[in-house]
């Protein structure tokens, strides 16, 4: 980055300043992401350490001799001091090694790799549906500000906010699988095998997961759009003869999308967490089934692995949202010291 800036000293200073603003803003986003990742690993590892569970007691049972236990503890590195265990665990995790299951000795990474695409594909579809429904609803409501469409959308959002996603999911099963018999009520086909079949199995869980986020998004978008349409620049554009629609899409939407993006960013953990419920509801072979099974057995490496991986997925998604927000919002990338401001 510094090379770009140095090479460009002959550029207009305005441009350099803007580039520096971008670099600093994205640097801040990256710093936050790295810190949050480290805190998350501490939280995850701490949970395992706090449990005090050890594989010897869990696997060998009560007949284990002290020598057996010592040997097993040594095998899993549990005889080291805690901070050293953490560093080992973190080092391995960074290389994609989350240890092996205490019970089956299958590498945790392999089990997760098999299960994760299920959740990712369904959560991704849910996010897409949420954006489509949320933006359509929010924009339609804002365009008809105070009208019938506006009130219907807002009422729907109010109702949806009171329903847990699995209630919506049950409703969808009752409607589409039990009554209409259009779609399967559970099961899964990988997207790589047959995208069409995948869609048939994935659409109901994704719909159930998307509703909550779509409601929040529509409501936030409506509020900020209505607010932004009242601003002077929007009125000005309208006075100059642009249609309301043109003002909305051309001028206002970009400015109003910041808070809506923030809502979307917050919806990601809800959607990923909701995928857990959807897995149980629609009987999907995803990461939650893995987590639930290992939680029942007390298979700590698998539990910690699933937790860490889901947190990383959410962290990546929210960092992406942060980056988009930074790119869209000039205020967010303005340098911290006021004299560096572009205005």
């Amino acid at each position, binding site marked *: 980055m510094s090379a770009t800036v140095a090479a460009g000293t002959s550029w207009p200073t305005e441009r350099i300043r803007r580039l520096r603003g971008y670099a600093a803003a994205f640097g801040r986003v990256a710093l*936050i992401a790295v*810190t*949050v990742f480290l*805190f*998350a690993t501490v939280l*995850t590892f701490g*949970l*395992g350490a706090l*449990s005090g569970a050890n594989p010897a007691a869990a696997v060998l049972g009560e007949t284990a001799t002290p020598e057996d236990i010592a040997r097993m503890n040594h095998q899993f590195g549990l005889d080291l001091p805690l901070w050293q265990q953490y560093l080992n665990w973190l080092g391995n995790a960074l290389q994609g090694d989350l240890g092996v299951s205490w019970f089956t000795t299958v590498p945790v990474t392999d089990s997760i790799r098999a299960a994760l695409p299920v959740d990712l594909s369904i959560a991704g579809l849910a996010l897409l549906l949420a954006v489509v429904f949320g933006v359509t609803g929010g924009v339609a409501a804002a365009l008809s500000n*105070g009208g019938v469409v*506006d009130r219907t959308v*807002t009422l729907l*959002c*109010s*109702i949806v*906010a*009171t*329903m*847990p996603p*699995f*209630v919506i999911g*049950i*409703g969808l*099963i*009752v409607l589409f699988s*039990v*009554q209409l018999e259009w779609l399967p009520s559970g099961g899964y086909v990988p997207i790589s095998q047959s995208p069409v079949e995948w869609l048939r199995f994935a659409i109901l869980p994704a719909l159930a997961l998307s509703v909550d986020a779509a*409601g*929040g998004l529509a*409501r*936030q978008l409506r*509020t900020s759009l209505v607010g932004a349409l009242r601003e002077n620049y929007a009125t000005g554009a309208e006075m100059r003869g642009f249609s309301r629609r043109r003002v909305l899409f051309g001028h206002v939407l970009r400015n109003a999308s910041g*808070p809506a993006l*923030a*809502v979307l960013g*917050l919806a990601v*953990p809800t959607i*990923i*967490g*909701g995928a*857990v*419920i959807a897995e*149980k*509801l629609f009987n999907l072979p995803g990461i*939650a089934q893995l*987590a*639930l099974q290992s*939680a*029942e057995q007390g298979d700590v490496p698998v*539990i*910690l692995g*699933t*937790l860490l991986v*889901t*947190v990383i997925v*959410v*962290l990546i998604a*929210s960092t992406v949202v942060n980056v988009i*927000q930074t790119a869209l919002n000039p*205020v967010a990338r303005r340098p911290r010291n006021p004299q560096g401001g572009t205005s």
Partner: protein
Amino acid sequence: MNTLRLAWRDPAGKASMIVLAGILFLVFFGSMLAPHDPLAQDPANMLQNPSAEHWLGTDYLGRDVLSRLMAGTRISVLGAVEAVLTAMLIGILPGLASVWLGPKFEWFSLRVTDTLMVVPFTVFAIAVVGTLGNGLHQSMIAIGILMSPLYFRVTRAVTMGLRQQQYVEAAELMGASQWWILRKHIWSKVLPTLAVTTAQALGTALLVMASLTFLGLGVTPPAPTWGGMLASDLAYLTQQPWAPLFPGLMIMLTVGSLNLLADVVRDATPDGVRRSWRRRLTSPSAGPITALPTVIEPEKERADARVPAA
């Protein structure tokens, strides 16, 4: 208390408070008033439709659905209350402190909040139950910890706004201690906002609680819970497609009343807006009634806070 009295004057506020009082009544007396034993199985009367004997029908073991709903209220609601109390306990003080204790603590506490906000509720609850043992307290305290950023952020935002007020600055200049300012000027102003947050947080916690019991976490099966009832109804959808309606309605009614109350309390100032039912449902006031408040970006916050000093 004053805020609640004002909220009572609003028809929507009154209705939601009556519903919530009813739920609270069920929390304490639900299992006593239940017409049948919520655990008594009756193999001869499985999956019955509603009748005079069983008003809401029976489930797959012949247990009375109404009794299970009434008795299940206690665990479902108290679990949510426990989570919210934990969140308050952990969130409020650091929220206040982050405004006062300097930039290092501020940065650290903001990153801790960021971390807690990227951990999904259900996955964390599964992990906690898996490592620390399956129990209601473990899972609800875990949820409380994850919900604490809500209190942290709200407290922090309000406090930061108040700190710029001239009367606070004046008190500071006159040599008032920080503790005194907190108690005298800040706390009473933070409370109403916290009341709104608590209503929303309870709603969220109830939904999460329902999700967890649906997964079989925290509460072991024979004990009735709303989420657990939904889970067992799921296997018999072909015979009883309407069965999930009742526990689902209980959840919606409670969460809806809490959201509505939050909205009313937010407006309840002595000269505040008074709006009709329909308007409240179709065009809510100030902010969205989403589970979490609009995110306050740390950068923006800091920019706002910097203004008076510059």
